[in-house]
């Protein structure tokens, strides 16, 4: 026999659940409408792969949706950010925000960037790849301190491969120089692959990069990490000390998250933020993230926005101390 009271309660619960759902979930994205995900990387690059991974995952979360990844490489990811900043504020365009490079782009006046931090509404951070410094396996340097001592003894002579001028790697080396009072000789490359080639070939003594850059080579035993520039050792290289432990309190790495242009409905931004959180926590995606060589590092809207500000301050500081 159906108890009227039970029925009422059940209906009430159902209605509440339904209503609750309707409030908690905005109608974003509408099925069939295309959501464009911009990224500044060339095809096959880390940014591109990250964007595709997340786009796939988002499509699974929102069945019937259509997330299109559009690569807009050019001007060292600057073009992609410009595109995001200029895109319509209807919530159907967003893209990758990669710190600290993002900050460098608008803090460097010669780049004439048409945007700054206020042009964006960061949604969430997805992954983190801590900075790391590597030497060939047979190198005489066993710890970061060895390298710094050598740099102190021969100022401007110890060669460290970095990617491009004022790139993240270059700024990391500069930060190290400022923290330890030494001078390195940065050698610039077009990408980390050619840098790796020079490292393995013995043309440079060390290379600054991120853990993800070096994983394959570490596993093969051809290079060694001297230090990791994070607050805690990396899960991929547990016995490598942090730079802080070696006396150089520099914290840096690649964080990759997602951002809308400024002015988008905050409810939509929060929706994406929650979705990214869900992706980070799902076991199958954790496997995928590990394959890319990254650590998941979810930051929600507020945290990511604060992080963007703190990175901007950090980069501003380093840039101001570069002589030229």
């Amino acid at each position: 026999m159906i108890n009227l009271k039970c029925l009422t309660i059940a209906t009430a619960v159902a209605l509440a659940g339904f209503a609750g759902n309707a409030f908690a979930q905005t109608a974003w994205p509408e099925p069939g409408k295309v959501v464009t995900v911009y990224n500044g990387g060339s095809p096959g690059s880390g940014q591109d792969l990250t964007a595709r991974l997340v786009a796939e995952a988002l499509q699974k979360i929102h069945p019937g949706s259509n997330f299109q990844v559009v690569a807009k490489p050019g001007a060292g990811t600057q073009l992609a950010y410009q595109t995001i900043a200029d895109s319509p504020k209807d919530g159907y365009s967003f893209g990758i925000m990669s710190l600290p490079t993002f900050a460098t782009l608008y803090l460097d006046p010669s780049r004439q960037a048409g945007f700054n931090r206020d042009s964006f509404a960061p949604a969430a951070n997805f992954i983190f790849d801590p900075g790391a410094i590597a030497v060939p396996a047979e190198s005489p340097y066993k710890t970061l301190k060895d390298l710094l001592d050598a740099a102190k003894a021969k100022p401007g002579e110890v060669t460290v491969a970095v990617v491009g001028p004022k790139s993240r790697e270059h700024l990391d080396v500069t930060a190290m120089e400022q923290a330890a009072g030494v001078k390195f000789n940065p050698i610039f490359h077009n990408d980390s692959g050619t840098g790796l080639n020079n490292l393995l070939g013995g043309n440079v003594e060390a290379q600054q990069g991120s853990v993800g850059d070096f994983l394959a080579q570490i596993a093969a035993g051809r290079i060694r990490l001297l230090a990791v520039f994070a607050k805690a050792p990396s899960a991929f290289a547990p016995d490598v000390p942090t730079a802080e432990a070696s006396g150089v309190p520099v914290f840096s790495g690649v964080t990759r998250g997602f951002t809308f242009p400024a002015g988008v409905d905050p409810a939509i931004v929060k929706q994406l933020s929650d979705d990214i959180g869900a992706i980070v926590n799902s076991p199958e995606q954790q496997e995928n993230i590990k394959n890319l060589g990254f650590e998941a590092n979810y930051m929600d809207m507020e945290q990511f926005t604060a992080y963007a500000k703190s990175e901007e301050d950090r980069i501003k500081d380093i840039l101001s101390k570069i002589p030229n």
Partner: protein
Amino acid sequence: MELFGDFIAGFGIALTPEHLFYALVGCLIGTLVGVLPGIGSAGGMVILLPLTFQMEPTGAIIMLAAIFYGSYYGGTITTILMNVPGEVASVATMQDGHAMARQGRAGVALSIAAIGSFIGGTLATLALVLMAPALSEMALAFGPPEFFALMVLGLATLAFLAGSSMPRALAMAVFGLILGSIGTDPTMGSPRLTMGFVPLLGGLDFVPVVMGLFGLSEVLINAENPTPVLTKKDIKGLYPSVRDFRQSAGSIVRGTGLGILLGLIPGTSQALASFVSYGVEKAVAKRPEEFGNGAIQGVAGPETANNAHANAALIPLFTLGIPGSPSVAILLGAFIINGLAPGPLLFEQHPEIVWPIICSMIVGNLMLLILNVPLIGMWVKILQVPTSILSPVIVLFICLGTYLVNNSVFDVWVMILFGLLGYTLRKLDFPLSPIALTLIVGPLMENAVRQALSISRGDVSILFRSWLACGLLAMAVFVLTLPLWRLRAIQTRGALGRDVED
């Protein structure tokens, strides 16, 4: 002989119907994509990357690799038939390939290109199998000074692209150097010659420039002076004769060696390999005056070098985990997404994936040959399509290809600009290929010398630090002066030669 056992076992897996199907699809799609001017191998792989996410790793990589070397052949088809480069690397084949087509020998050109590509690609893959560790050590021997010397050698082959006027060729070459320096300075990060355009901060992209200079200019020149549409009787045979084979044999051998050597060195590209091969062929040819008018060596050499480079560029990828060229970088991404870290450990940890992929490359190269040779008859029919339809279609694909590189309209403007420039230059008899060569080699050379000098803190002697570097530089000087040696030889032999050859 565990290695051998793995190799054979790899064939077993590569020859399963499923994997054969993937290779086939990859070859077909690669060829189709390559035929579209502007969308080269990198573009093709990017387009199809998402499809491969749904597939299991071995199959996905087999297909991507097939697209990779398939698209080079597709590019050749467009180049030979329509004088529009299918992609940057085909520019070297364009001179003689299209000349052959106009002589009715398009089928021969396409066949030789297919055969040469097959031989080059297979030998490069076998090199990977048999000598990978030794070869990758060789790759590591190329530090900045050696790379610089290699680039000087590459630039020296310019001597053979001169055409009818040396000063004009030199002017164009230097123009290419200037174009190559547009962008952000590699060491100081300051913008250089960008004239305030933000998209130029990354430098001029090859595709819009090459599509404009060679592709669009061809369409424009055609508008004035239409190439006569070949009728059926003009087509002199679809397949090479014994004489053709004999003439190309040397070029194929040289092209393979060159392609493999260059492919090993990260930072070089297929375009470089085919240009250098063209230069080499012209240098050693008994009748260099035939080049530009349908010399079969001018097709056989570059095409073989092209494909050999493409396959050999996978060696540093497999052994060191370092991609040798941008297209290979995409393959690297595919590996990573599938959880495979390419590098020395890959062979040990996942032999059941790596070997089938390598075997499939051999199978794929063969498949490409088998697929395309019968299709040559079909491709050649394209020559019979009236210009009124062909030209608009070519423009369609040039525009599409140019836009898709960076999803950028700016590239389309660059392409138009260079199209007009190319049109003017061609009408005034300025050679265009030096521009393409220096555009590629210039930045690489400058980068290398500045890196080298950074390491040595300004000491120029680092450029001569190894036998390899000095040897390459000496070869460059030799190559540059080669035309003078030949001139002397021709002049001394002059009277006699005429008697004998008449």
